[in-house]
């Protein structure tokens, strides 16, 4: 079970959080202008790297805030967390 550093509440057990997949995937500015390929990329495609990964979590059973986490998908080591809207800091 991961120990996840919520940027607001500090380190808490994974069970308090919900996973949100890859970070930095924005909703298309104008969805209606996206062609089928572009739209499918937004809806169904997400980065899936082996190694360092910027991902989203929400402190579901804590402060209910979404945030980003940098975690290694091969070791589960967490490098740090940062707020939604910020660039990767870790």
């Amino acid at each position, binding site marked *: *079970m*991961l*120990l996840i550093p919520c940027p607001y509440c500090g380190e808490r*057990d994974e069970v308090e959080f*919900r996973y*949100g997949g890859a970070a930095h995937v*924005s*909703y*298309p500015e104008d*969805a*209606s202008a*996206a062609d*089928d390929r572009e*739209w*499918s990329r*937004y*809806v*169904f495609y997400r980065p899936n790297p082996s190694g360092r990964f910027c991902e*989203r979590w*929400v402190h*579901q059973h804590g402060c*209910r*805030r*979404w945030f980003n986490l940098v975690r290694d998908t091969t*070791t*589960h*080591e*967490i490098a740090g967390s940062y707020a*939604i*809207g910020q660039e990767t800091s870790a």
Partner: protein
Amino acid sequence: MRRLADGGRLDRSTTLAVTWDGREIEAHPGDTLASALLAAGITEVARSTVHGRPRGIVSAGAEEPCAYVQVDAPRSEPLVAATLVEAVDGLVAAPLAGFGRLAGDDLERHDRRHHHCDVLVVGGGTAGAAEARRAAAAGLRVVWAERDTGPLPDLGDDALCLSRTTAVGSYDDNLVMLVERVSSTRRRMWQVRAGEVVLATGAHERPLVFAGNDLPGVMLAGAARTYLERFALVPERAVVFTTNDAGTETAEALRAAGAAVTLVDARAGHAVVAAEGEGRLRSVLVAPIATPADAERVECELLAVSGGFEPVLDLHRHRRGGVRWDAPRACFVPHGTVRNQRIVGTAMGDGLPTVAALWLVPGGEERHAYVDLQRDVTVTDLRRAVGAGLESIEHVKRYTLVGTGVDQGRTAKTNAAAIAAGLLGREIAEIGTSTTRPPVEPVSFAVLAGRARGPRFEPVRTTPIHAWHVNHGAVFEDVGQWKRPWYYPQPGEDMDAAVLRECAAARTGVAMMDASTLGKIDIQGPDSAEFLNRLYTNSYDTLRVGRCRYGLLCRADGMVFDDGVVTRVAEDRFFATTTTGGAAAVLDWMEEWLQTEWPELRVHLTSVTEQWQTVAVVGPRSRDLLSSAFGAIDFSNEAFPFMTFRDTTFHKRFPARVSRVSFSGELAYEVSVPSDAGRLLWLGLWKAGEPLGVTAYGTETMHVLRAEKGFVIVGQDTDGTVTPIDLGMDWIVSKTKPFVGRRSLTRPDTARPDRKQLVGLLPDDPSVRLDEGAQLVLDPEQAPPVTMIGHVTSSYRSAALGRTFALALVRSGRERLGEPVYSPGADGITAARVVEPVFYDAEGLRRDG
């Protein structure tokens, strides 16, 4: 072996009644089942799984490969190591042949405890003790765990010192599971989150491989010494076969205790070539390693063997900690580090003796030379595996099953790797060793489940009105974690009769339902309307204050995901309801969009699902009921039109909201009050309704009533593959504003005209009810695979229609109105006709009462 008159760590003043295989044997506090068996002269304690050979006690600890027994009392447990079973009064155990027996549920109390510390020290030996003391002295919060039974010293208030406790698994970020044997029957699992983990788990001994090495009487040398020093057990005649100094010391200790000992030292070029005996060890053949044929027979009852030592690194391995081969000590030692974990003492390899590198003694019969006693794997098996072309130790493991037993091959793996390396002509360091996995020692399902059994397994959510439902005979339906009244059978009624009665009451009189489980979300802020516009398929900026609007939510893929009613309470405040099952998901979904995509919107969301209890009052006489309950409100159509609400008070002190919404097509209202007044509200409305013959109804009736009107239930008439257009709900899908999922509706497949569409079905025989889930075909005579054009999503008997009817998703359904479809079932074919999905009051005349 016999028990010495004194010595050992035993309480000889007490004799325990222990039953082995139906026979009473003697034991003292301090004994294990294994030591008691040895003291009683019992050497064969199990039969091997595959070859059916007699097996004895090999070790004095957790590395035991052979002595797995069934314990029947005081707590029945299959397949436990006799070396780990503490002797207690009333212990009943029996031999096994590798297969345990399950003796029913385990209702013993196994507790769970979460704990946090700065340092967790695993192991109560010298190195562990030093680490624990040092950490405690530094003022750190310490947990110190030792699997043996002796109490650990007290290290102060902030130290938790647990004996009889095994660390069974190490997980990410230093979460370590400890199992404490609280008593002979109870376990407590500690889940310890540690800043640092210190492994002082020591080492265990490894046997040597030679013909007949599985005979009862062949034991690890260190175990022989433990049985002597701790349990005061000594053999008459023993042979000690060693590759290292530890074995030599054991020989001296046995000799000092009065045994006749022959030392066979591989370092001096000698080996035991074979062990002999029928059912138990009688003698061994000793020969020079170089010339195994020159063997000499030595009689003995015990053969103590030491092939070397292996650091116990399971917890390190659970965390993918590395190991490397250490040639002088002939074992795998830690290599590299795991974050926030240290390994100390013999677990690091420190202090382990150098050994003569010997695994397989040449010259004996390989088919009787056991590499893995637990799985009956011999050298012959390894030779076959390598001969079959296998080069990876993992393949050898799967071909032979070496190392896959209850003991995870603790005493077998290194020998297997070394022998396989020899056969492949490679180095053991290249071959490596297969990894160990949690748990370190077997943990029962019941211990892992802990207290989450029976009534504590998962929450049962009920509303404050639940007791009333129970008292009025409701049958309940599970909806998510909620128990909702499904229907209220009266004496003599079956479900059909009850539902027909409840439906009739709602259509002709007045009926009430507990609707409190619907999700409720308070939405505040100046951008609330814009926020709702972006999520719902229809518009909310156009909703006037004081009015309600039905809304649909789609996922980004355009598929319907929830629905509900949105009420505009104030210019910048809305109140949205969700389905019962979707409540948490919808709030989460809204928060996700708000926080991650549109943080600029000034909107705040709060779950008020349990702040408010809601009662639906339905039927032509609902206005009468509510007029009597809420005299201050003018319930006339003109004063209180459809899709509006009125705030008032209930019992003079509780705020109450009456909304005029209808999920049945009838004149209907929903009344909400704070949940602490929910029961009072129900009782109050019930009382007001009694003169009107009010009837309570459940979810089934609610479903029938809405289906008669063609209203969908998300999750029943949809399955994640249905768009609003498929449901015929184009009227609620904005053409002018963007919303989540809208773009998906114009993809080639979602825009196809021949998608499955919601339609009504009327069975040709009005008494036949189609099965929900029935598949629909055009040609009932077609042979499989039959072309299916859709399926029945909802199907009921209708009191109002006096017949059965159904809703279905049918390919090009709206083009098939009036056409026949067939449902081939196990009991024959049912014919039905496709119709519009609105069966009752299509003109909407009943809505206003």
